[in-house]
């Protein structure tokens, strides 16, 4: 076998080892390297995951027993507002963008993103937005000495956000933080699309691109049409609050319903912005641990693109109780139900990929199996809620809260944890401890089901979301207590993950280039990858370039 010289030797010279800490910090602060920016996104998101999780725990303690006075009603309002805003804008978006930032250039054989400096700008503006949101605890009271952190709920319905009902600056911090995070999101999405369209390595046609970049392409396209309306709506809200305009001022003929429309035009596609990367991780991990090529690649791409399009026409299913009229209700019921078709195609494709495969139950695959199961249930309760009459009954109840947490935690967070275990060896060069990983998996799985399976029931029994306490004897007591217990399991599981990540970084086994015997380009470079990624720009002949390399007798390219 002929060997081409590999320029790994130069990796060492570029390392920051032995540098004084000031230089290292300076390098991280000024870096435009997509891998470092991606890691900073992930670390920043994990910090907010801990903060947002802490807020969730406080809320569960408050609700664990009836007539509890652990926190005041005002603090409870702030907790659910901050929890929702943090988890969507400062945990979900950045962590998925971070993964995309790290992986997309590596998977398409590029040396960096298309606009490295825009990339750094987008990260820092998002990071600033997160800090701005939490600064509200200090600066929110303003000159009026009223308010602290935002307490208007994560969708901030008008007219609650007007100056009259939200004096002080708490709502301003919310608006500006969300606005800035939107600017960062649009910048990064622009970068991802441009990178995918303009930076692919030789031979990587769109039809040969791995599914992760494909799904990030769809997700970034959605960001343009979903996050921009939110940015526009936040500008309007800022004008209302600062210049006295009347967009959402019902006293002057403005419409509160218009805010609902604008928010949910963002809000529902946003769910798909968050879940598409979760699908993307599943698309990479499931085939590798089933030892089979992805089943139905074109169908997967088509399903993702159609999810993108359909998701733009479902927003008003969040507004059935606002009164849309029969025509509007019918349209949004059907549009919402239709979206389960491409989603179902995806689930069948994943099952068909696993079917007949040599399944390896390493930690990433364990999380993926849980992801499949839980995402299915989340989708089914979604179809229930999409029926308008059912929705009228259960809207704004704990059933809704349980449904969307099933999507966000059961599907997205599980997929994300799988992705952590899968790509951690690439990022650090060390394997993660498998025993700890299994502890994390089982604790988190049990905790998740204790919390969110049982949370459906008080919803059906009539418990509204966002109440800070409730009376005993309504049949909610035991259920809420179990939900609280589950939250503790999840917290312990997550702490084990954090410990495992730190522990394995110092004590883990060496991973080498390709610990999972995988097929995409990121596994062809050293772990961690050098700053230029590829010493020699790669070329590809098929969807699984490393398979071709390892099996020259039976390359994939023969079947394309």
């Amino acid at each position, binding site marked *: 076998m002929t060997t081409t010289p590999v320029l790994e030797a130069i990796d060492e010279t570029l390392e920051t080892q032995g540098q004084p800490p000031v230089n290292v910090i300076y390098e991280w602060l000024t870096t435009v390297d997509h891998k470092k920016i991606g890691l900073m996104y992930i670390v920043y998101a994990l910090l907010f995951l801990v903060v947002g999780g802490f807020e969730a725990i406080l809320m569960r303690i408050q609700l664990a027993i009836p007539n509890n006075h652990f926190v005041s009603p005002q603090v409870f309002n702030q907790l659910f507002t901050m929890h929702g805003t943090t988890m969507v804008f400062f945990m979900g978006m950045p962590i998925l963008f971070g993964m995309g930032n790290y992986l997309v250039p590596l998977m398409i054989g590029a040396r960096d993103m298309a*606009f490295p400096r825009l990339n750094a700008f987008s990260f820092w503006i998002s990071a600033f937005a997160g800090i701005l949101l939490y600064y509200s605890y200090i600066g929110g009271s303003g000159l009026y000495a009223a308010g602290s952190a935002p307490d208007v709920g994560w969708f901030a319905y008008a007219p609650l956000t007007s100056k009259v009902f939200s004096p002080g600056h708490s709502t301003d911090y919310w608006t500006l933080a969300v606005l800035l995070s939107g600017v960062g999101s649009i910048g990064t999405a622009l970068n991802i699309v441009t990178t995918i*369209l*303009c930076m692919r390595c030789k*031979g990587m046609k769109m039809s040969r691109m791995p599914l992760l970049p494909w799904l990030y392409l769809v997700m970034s396209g959605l960001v343009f049409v979903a996050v921009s309306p939110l*940015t526009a709506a936040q500008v309007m809200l800022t*004008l209302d609050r600062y210049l006295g305009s009347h967009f959402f001022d019902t006293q*002057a003929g403005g*419409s509160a319903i218009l805010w609902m429309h604008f928010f949910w035009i963002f809000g529902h596609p946003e769910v798909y912005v968050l879940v598409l990367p979760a699908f993307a991780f599943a698309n990479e991990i499931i085939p590798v641990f089933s030892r089979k090529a992805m089943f139905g690649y074109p169908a997967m791409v088509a399903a993702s693109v159609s999810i993108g399009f359909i998701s733009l026409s479902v927003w008003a299913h969040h507004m059935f109780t606002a009164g849309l009229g029969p025509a509007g209700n019918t349209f949004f019921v059907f549009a919402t139900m239709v979206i389960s078709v491409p989603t179902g195609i995806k689930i069948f494709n994943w099952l068909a990929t696993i079917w007949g495969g040599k399944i390896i139950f390493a930690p990433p695959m364990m999380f993926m199996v849980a992801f499949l199961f839980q995402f299915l249930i989340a989708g089914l309760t979604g179809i229930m809620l999409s029926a308008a009459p059912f929705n009228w009954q259960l809207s704004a109840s704990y059933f809704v809260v349980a449904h969307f947490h099933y999507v966000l935690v059961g599907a997205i967070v599980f997929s994300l944890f799988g992705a952590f275990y899968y790509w951690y060896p690439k990022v650090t060069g060390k394997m993660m401890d498998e025993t700890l990983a299994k502890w994390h998996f089982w604790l988190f799985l049990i905790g998740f089901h204790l919390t969110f399976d049982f949370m459906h029931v008080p919803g059906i029994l009539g418990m509204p979301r966002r109440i800070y306490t409730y009376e005993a004897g309504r049949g909610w007591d035991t259920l809420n207590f179990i939900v609280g217990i589950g939250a503790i399991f999840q917290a312990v599981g997550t702490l084990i993950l954090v410990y495992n990540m730190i522990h394995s970084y110092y004590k883990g086994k060496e991973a080498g280039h390709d610990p999972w015997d995988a097929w995409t380009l990121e596994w062809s470079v050293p772990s961690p990858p050098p700053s230029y990624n*590829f010493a020699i720009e790669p*070329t590809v002949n098929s969807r699984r370039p490393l398979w071709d390399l390892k099996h020259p007798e039976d390359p994939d390219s023969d079947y394309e």
Partner: protein
Amino acid sequence: MTTITTASRIPIDGPVETPWKLPYRGTIGMACLIIAESAIFIIFVVAYIYYIGKSLSGPTPAQVLELPIFGTICLLSSSIFVHFAVSSLRKENYRGCTLNLAATVLLGTIFLATTAREWYHLIHDEGLTIKTNLFGTTYYSLVGLHATHVVVGLIMLSLVLCFSLAGLVKEEHSEKLEVLSLYWHFVDAVWVVVFLVVYVLGR
């Protein structure tokens, strides 16, 4: 033991097909920005249309708005000049490029001046501000958002004009100037929509 080192060792089967050419990243990036900006404008336009005739007090658009024909002609024709600037640069006609850029900046500035005059008239003579009623709210925000984009475009075009006057803009920069011209065309196209919505539909 064979170690897999780099994917560049994968042999290419057969002769390399047509040279590997991907789109220019500036164009794609600008296209993405235009899509995102369009979504922002759509929201403001929807709000404008939704609130037509819903103001609880005067003045109404029919009482105070006049068709800004002159400004519109200036802005739309500036699009043609920026196009000429790009094509002159491609042909290495640097003088033509500078002149066309100057014309673009001049026409854009005239448009901005007509908007400023209109706002002065509305605020000073008619007493219409963003606080007055829903018409004021939606009018100033939509037209203001567009004017902000004109200002940004003018700043960038003026920078290029300065570089061009200094003789620094060369043929190899034509792709970049084209990206800027895309933005300017977008700003002009938005004005067509704003014009139709504010001055035709809304009056």
